[in-house]
């Protein structure tokens, strides 16, 4: 547990000392919120920015998580993993430290996006709902960070990981309920979207915004997260370079 905190602290310090990059990661979701949310002519709602805010919050977590996989690639390519894997502290704490940092960073970024949404006129729900929104985003972040970090453990270099990242994160986002309601989707997309973890997270957050606390989605995400965590832990224990 202590070593998880040490790994977390290492990544956090490095991130905070990166200065510019602390902000640049926010441009993409902010652009979605402003340029798509404020501008897209939609028929099903007259408050589109309000509709996609939950989707953009989940997207912030999704992209941030998958971006976080490159931390593992860096540690591997630069030789840090060689040193860490030869240490007596449990190897899975490397994984947990990464997940903790990536999720924490994602939640900070989501907070800024949420503040921006409020500036754009989106109404915040009550405190209880807000807590559950963060819980949903957190669980979803853990799921994403564990998946990304484990993929990164098996991928050789930056190019490979960038390819995997764009192959997974963009389609996951588009094939979800983040941008449009199920009833406006073509049938094939509806099927895909209803099986997509991004939709589970988005739907849950959306229900919180409309004032109903619905924890079914969180439960599904948590179960998925635990499964991925189990697999990742096993893979880290067995890891070789």
């Amino acid at each position: 547990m202590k070593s998880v905190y040490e790994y977390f602290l290492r990544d956090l310090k490095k991130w905070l000392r990166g200065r510019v990059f602390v902000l640049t990661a926010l441009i993409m979701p902010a652009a979605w919120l402003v340029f798509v949310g404020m501008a897209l002519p939609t028929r099903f709602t007259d408050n589109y920015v309000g509709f996609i805010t939950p989707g953009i919050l989940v997207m912030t977590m999704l992209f941030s998580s998958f971006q976080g996989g490159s931390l593992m690639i860096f540690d591997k390519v630069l030789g840090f993993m060689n040193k860490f894997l030869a240490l007596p502290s449990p190897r899975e704490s490397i994984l947990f430290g990464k997940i903790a940092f990536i999720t924490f960073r994602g939640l900070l970024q989501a907070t800024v996006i949420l503040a921006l949404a409020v500036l754009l006129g989106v109404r915040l729900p009550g405190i209880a709902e807000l807590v559950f929104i963060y819980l949903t985003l957190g669980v979803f972040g853990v799921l994403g960070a564990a998946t990304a970090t484990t993929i990164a453990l098996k991928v050789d270099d930056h190019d490979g990981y960038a390819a995997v990242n764009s192959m997974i994160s963009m389609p996951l986002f588009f094939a979800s309920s983040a941008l449009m309601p199920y009833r406006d989707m073509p049938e094939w997309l509806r099927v895909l979207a209803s099986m997509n973890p991004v939709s589970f997270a988005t739907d849950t957050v959306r229900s919180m915004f409309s004032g109903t606390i619905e924890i079914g989605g969180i439960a599904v995400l948590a179960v998925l997260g635990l499964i991925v965590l189990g697999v990742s832990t096993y893979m880290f224990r067995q890891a070789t370079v």
Partner: protein
Amino acid sequence: MSVIVTENLTRYYKDLCAVDHVDLEVGREIFGLLGPNGAGKSTIVKMLTTLLRPSDGRACVCGHDVVKDAVRVRESISYVPQEMALDIKLTGRENVVLFARLYGVPNARDRTDEALGLLGLADRADELVRGYSGGMRRRLELAQALVHEPRVLFLDEPTLGLDVAAREKIWEHVHALKEKGMTIFMTTHYMDEADRYCDRVAIIDRGKISAIGTPQGLKGEIGRSVVTASVSGEPGAFSLEGVRLLKVDDHELVFMAGDGADALAAISQELKRQGLEIHSLSVRETSLDDVFLQKVGTPEDRSAFDGSKYRLMLRRR
């Protein structure tokens, strides 16, 4: 008691045999693994540090099996890999404290101060590593490795890319550690350093140990002196007692001999007898380079360069 023992240690990368049934026994000493690039040095170190699983055979470090007792092995060792991996956005102290905490040493702060002091980094400990020189970075890595007082220290090419003074300094530290009872297992391809600082060396080529012993002993095996003669004319056959013609290069003849002074006279006499004109004649002591060239051969002797296998090795190293 042996600190490191390997029996038939073998590692394949696909069908490339990087390490081929290696038997080693290392006690409390500075042990150097020498060999050309891609000979399997780093692969052996990675198996001993539990980073790679052997394909066959076994290895024990401090009595613990590297596969079955991996955690116990990791508790007894420190490993400094070839690539310098330091967080340049963190200070020297932060880099070391991280490892102290990860090793779980009590009083991480104090141990860090001690390690930094030992390696002469105390006065710059609170600067970002970004500003450190290559030599300082390597010493910082040693400080990281030493915060937990390991029984065995693995160093993979510890002096690679450092200037002479920095290399000297690294070796002083390594020597001091050995005096304190630590076992140091290192790889290098600087023969002169291995000669000066290692208690024993093994020369490894294409995954196999081709020679093992003290630097003195290995040099003695092939003859203590090398005589080089530059001549004009066509040299004939040589049959002198205690002298061996090693190679003929244009107009340069290289001999191996047991006793340099005696051989010099005999060789000069023989060259004159053959009617050769001697331009220069020199004698020097055998170095590990000579042993290496004798045991491993020159790069030209080696089988054709296999690009794909080489790249595979590089990637997996």
